[in-house]
């Protein structure tokens, strides 16, 4: 009897492992930056290149840093939802225009609308490296102390925004600065 049970149990264990493996999204890599202070930077603003922006300027506020490019399909997919979120005035949206041309970025925002309070231009991609960005769009939620609390990789949709982000933002707003 044992002769049959042992291989069967091993087989079931193997199947369970493989089934769990299949559910995992290989594109999703947990960020080591969660619970760490958002890396400092000072980048020119898209609409005011002489004025620089850095995370320290939003200290005491809960804000979103959204990495995007003008030629990224996922960014276009989430764009209407970002516009909607921006119109609700729940959170400050900062756009990190990653390795893009300022002209293309501007013309896209002019055409489709600008959900961002501030857009900064990371032409060299060096800030992208500091934030561990590898696949735009990526979105970071930063708390009032300037700590990254949540990261989402891929285009945001209503489920992610209203199911996860907004409740989390409301909670983070309650925390002391």
């Amino acid at each position, binding site marked *: 009897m044992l002769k049959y049970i042992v291989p069967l149990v091993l087989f079931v264990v193997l199947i369970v492992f493989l089934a769990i493996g299949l559910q995992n999204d290989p594109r999703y890599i947990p960020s080591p930056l969660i619970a760490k202070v958002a890396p400092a930077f000072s980048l020119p603003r898209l609409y005011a290149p002489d004025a620089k922006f850095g995370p320290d300027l939003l200290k005491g506020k809960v804000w979103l840093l959204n990495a995007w490019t003008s030629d990224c399909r996922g960014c276009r997919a989430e764009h209407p939802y970002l516009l909607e979120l921006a119109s609700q005035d729940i959170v400050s949206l900062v756009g990190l225009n990653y390795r893009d041309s300022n002209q293309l970025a501007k013309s896209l925002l002019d055409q489709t609308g600008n959900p961002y309070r501030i857009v900064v231009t990371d032409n060299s991609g060096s800030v992208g490296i500091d*934030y561990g960005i590898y696949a735009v769009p990526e979105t970071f939620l930063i708390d009032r102390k300037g700590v990254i609390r949540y990261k989402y990789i891929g285009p945001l949709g209503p489920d992610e925004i209203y199911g996860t982000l907004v409740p989390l933002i409301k909670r983070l707003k309650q925390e002391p600065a």
Partner: protein
Amino acid sequence: MKPSIKPNMKLSAALILPILLLLSSITLSVYAGVEVREFTDAEQERRYHKLIDELRCLVCQNQNLADSNSQLALDLRNKVFEMLAAEKTDQQVADYMVQRYGEYVLYNPPLDPVTSILWIGPILAVIAAILLLLIFIFKLSKTTPVTLSDEDRAKTKNLLDQKGDDE
């Protein structure tokens, strides 16, 4: 006696298969990272290639930084080169990448509680296999040996003698 071909063919098939398997496990590194670099010395160049070989590209996940043509891989190769030029140690470069992208970027992950199954798993599997094999051999040795009756022995002897006559 005719030269027997069949057993030899079996033998060569048995040899070819493992050889092919072995060969298939050897891959040549074809570098996508062909940027012109000016290294200060051969040692720095060696370290550079070792590092970009061992760091994973996050865009094309089954390639290392050396193999990948992606923009990010190029940026990160530049970063590795810059850091080596600034006299950072290999460990500092690896730490820099891990801080940003997590241990996922290391093709050679460190031994810690999370990765322990990766390191110990194969050893456990080999030990289990050896144990199973020993149990199997032990059981086999305990089976009662076949005993031959006098009649059987006589038959066998007869057959063997006949064969001797043929040659």
